[in-house]
């Protein structure tokens, strides 16, 4: 009888310890919430089939909250890989010490001008231009330079995003600094302000107001028209490259410092640079792939083509951004 009881207790104890013993934690990726499901599923199924690894995605409303989470978990990192920190976030992420550098095997295949981080804390995987889009049915005079936008003809016809709360907005602020210098950009904004219908907190609201027909000019992405071509079969919306150039938003992926699965994390970084994965990017993410050896799909003929990049050196941005933003805020509130 006693023996039986002992066996029962042993059985229960074993089952319990089985339950308590944590199952292998999957490879965990943090990203922002608009990262395309198609790409998520591609990664998950590839790792299941090729490496017998389970990958789990957790998404955050925006890059800010994502970085926030990494900082909060610094003592006990939960994530292995982070996807979607862009060139403007690099200095901040490095100074917060949440990333581990890793130079991917295919590093040579990346277009050299896109490698914004020579130490590879972040590996670029896609990029896009932050440019104005216009509604060809509602705009008769199409501007060709940033100076043109100051013409009274455009009064109330432009919507831009707030550089304090949105990454396209921030890229545009940097564009004006690249073009007009630290001495000139505030004067430019003083004039531009008169023509702005409003400044929205994020891209969603700005683009919504634009497609409602309220304004003919909006700050958006160079590949936005591709969507309308693919899904609505219209070329009504056009990208606008002013002054022959554009600011590139380069999105990167990186390995979290002290990641639980460093091996798997490295495999993942290598995978998103593979031609298979890179080929999916244009028509799911509406961004350009970073590999130099890929052809773009036909729909991208309508996307913006920029001859030069306005991008400022990341260390300049890191050193001055706070100051530039504060000065901008003051001018806007004048």
């Amino acid at each position: 009888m006693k023996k039986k009881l002992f066996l029962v207790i042993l059985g229960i104890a074993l089952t319990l310890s089985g339950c308590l013993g944590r199952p292998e934690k999957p490879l965990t990726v943090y990203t922002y919430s608009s990262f395309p499901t198609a790409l998520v599923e591609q990664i998950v199924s590839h790792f299941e089939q090729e490496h017998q690894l389970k990958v789990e995605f957790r998404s955050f409303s925006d890059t800010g909250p994502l970085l926030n989470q990494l900082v909060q978990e610094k003592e006990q990192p939960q994530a292995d890989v982070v996807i979607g920190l862009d060139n403007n976030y690099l200095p901040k992420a490095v100074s917060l010490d949440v990333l581990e550098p890793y130079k991917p095997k295919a590093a040579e295949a990346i277009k050299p001008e896109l490698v914004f981080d020579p130490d590879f804390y972040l590996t670029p995987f896609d990029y896009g231009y932050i440019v104005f889009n216009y509604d060809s049915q509602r705009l008769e005079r199409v501007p060709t330079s940033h100076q043109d936008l100051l013409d009274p003809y455009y009064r109330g016809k432009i919507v831009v995003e707030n550089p304090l709360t949105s990454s396209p907005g921030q890229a545009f602020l940097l564009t004006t600094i690249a073009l007009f210098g630290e001495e000139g950009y505030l004067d430019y904004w003083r004039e531009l302000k008169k023509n702005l219908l409003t400044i929205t907190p994020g891209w969603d609201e700005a683009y919504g107001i634009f497609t409602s027909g309220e304004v003919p000019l909006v700050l958006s992405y160079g590949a936005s028209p591709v969507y309308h071509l693919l899904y609505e079969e219209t070329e009504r919306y056009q990208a606008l490259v002013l002054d022959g150039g554009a600011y590139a938003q380069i999105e990167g992926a990186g390995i979290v410092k002290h990641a639980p699965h460093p091996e798997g994390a490295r495999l993942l970084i290598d995978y998103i640079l593979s031609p298979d994965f890179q080929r999916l990017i244009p028509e799911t993410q509406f961004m350009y792939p970073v590999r130099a050896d890929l052809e773009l799909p036909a729909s991208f003929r309508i996307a913006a083509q920029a001859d030069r990049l306005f991008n400022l050196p990341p260390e300049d941005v890191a050193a001055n951004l706070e100051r530039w933003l504060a000065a901008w805020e003051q001018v806007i509130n004048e």
Partner: protein
Amino acid sequence: MKRFSSLARKKERGEKRGGRSVLYYVLLCLFYLPVLSVLSRAFLGRNAWTALLGLLSSEQTLKVLTFTTKQALLSALFSLLLALPGAYFFGRYDFPGKRLLRSMMIIPFMLPGILVVLGMVVFYGRNGFFNQLLAYLFPGRTVTFTELYGFKGIVLAHVFYNFSFCLRMLGERWERLNPRLEEASLMLGASKFETWFRIILPLLLPTVGYLFTLVFLYSFLGFTVVLVLGGYLYQTFEVLIYIEYNHKLNFDRASMLAGLQLLFLAGVLAVQNWTGRNARRYSGELSYLPPLSLKRHRCRALFFLVYLVATLLFFVLPLLLVSIRSFQQRGQAAGAWTLENYRLLFREEFRFAVGQRLVSVVVTSFLLAVVVALITVLLADLVAKQRRRYRWDRSDLWLQLPTGVSFLTFAFGLINLTGRALPTWVLLIWAQVFLAFPLVYSILRTARRELGEELLEAAQLLGATGRELFWTAEFPLLKRALGSALAYGAALSLGDLSAVLVLGQGKLVTLSVAVYRLIGHYHFPLATALGTVFILLSLILFSLVDAGKLEDHV
């Protein structure tokens, strides 16, 4: 006899603690621990007090405070002024379509901010419907409405959000005013005007005061609307906190701003509580009266019709225009009509943008809303029952304070406190109960207080058990309040975006999240289609709740 003495003892014990039970204190802990964890960060850090002084004396703080207060005051004032005539008709008269209209009044509460903003733009914008109408009515002359983007636009949007909710709450209150008081006053020779000012207004005043405060708080904490329409000139504290926390990653300053905001709003609530005290003395004299038929009062019916058409035009049409967009061919401004966008809701395209299928989004949203509403109503009703014998006092104020806490602050505090150790859905329900509790509690608190002690005590003395008592005496009398409380609880949960985004980690996809994801992938027509589907489903849900509670009336 034994029963009686135990009842008396219970009463005595309750008296001593002012009706505050263990549950009351548990709720306080659930609500205030996360808030305290944010505040401690703000006020206990190094150099906290120097930084605080700097913040207090800065010009920006003063500017933000002035603007935020001014727009919130005006929003509350106009919401109530607009709601007053409607509340009168909803409270006094019966007319066809009343039930549906009543259910419709909750809709703005549960819609994602971006759809409301788009509705405003499509209707009041420069190229919007309203301006086209003006151009049509006054050809040749340049009569235009160009005030949407700025201070007036912000107030307009906040009135848009809140006036229908004021109308409903005030109307329900009006329904319960005892008509005999009015009759008596008139019979004693008082003029109609005098009767209104000295009898009816004082009876309505507590509700008016409460609603004023509530709209003030909601507008004070405004976020999306202020950001989109205010452009760059206007910022609320909520906007500052968001920027500090998410973009400058300056947690201490963000917490400090949140703390300041909380102190200020707590002050507002305390003042309201203090001024409302005298008015509440009147609130004993209540009863239901059968609504009058509008058909017999032609002149009033006409006035009501004008009012109704105007409010429908200015407040319902903007949302309707957004819905109409979902029936248009994509990429065409005024193209052919189509159901294509609705078909696409069931396709892979939807799943790729949103991450889940439509069915699971619908089920998740409504399940969460119903669970949150039930939990909130249960907790609120228990506390309200325990406190039914007491006048509204400081203890109730503590349960109202969540309205004054920026929801952003609460979600961050929750993460700060639990470190995400609890499962996502627990955190989410916790946060949404916090969000819904004050409003739900105030509805039930008033209803319980007015229920009257005598009836329940009589039933108890006659030997009714707890369950019998509830189903035969309390429930029929509380039905209406319970229905409203459930509906608002569910609506607040459905409309919530911040909690799901901050706490949901991308796994829980609700209506608001899905709408944002669709828009993030350029699928604007799909987003409007989804919005329309949710409006219809919610209307059905709220109609069911309202039908349940009106049953005894019709």
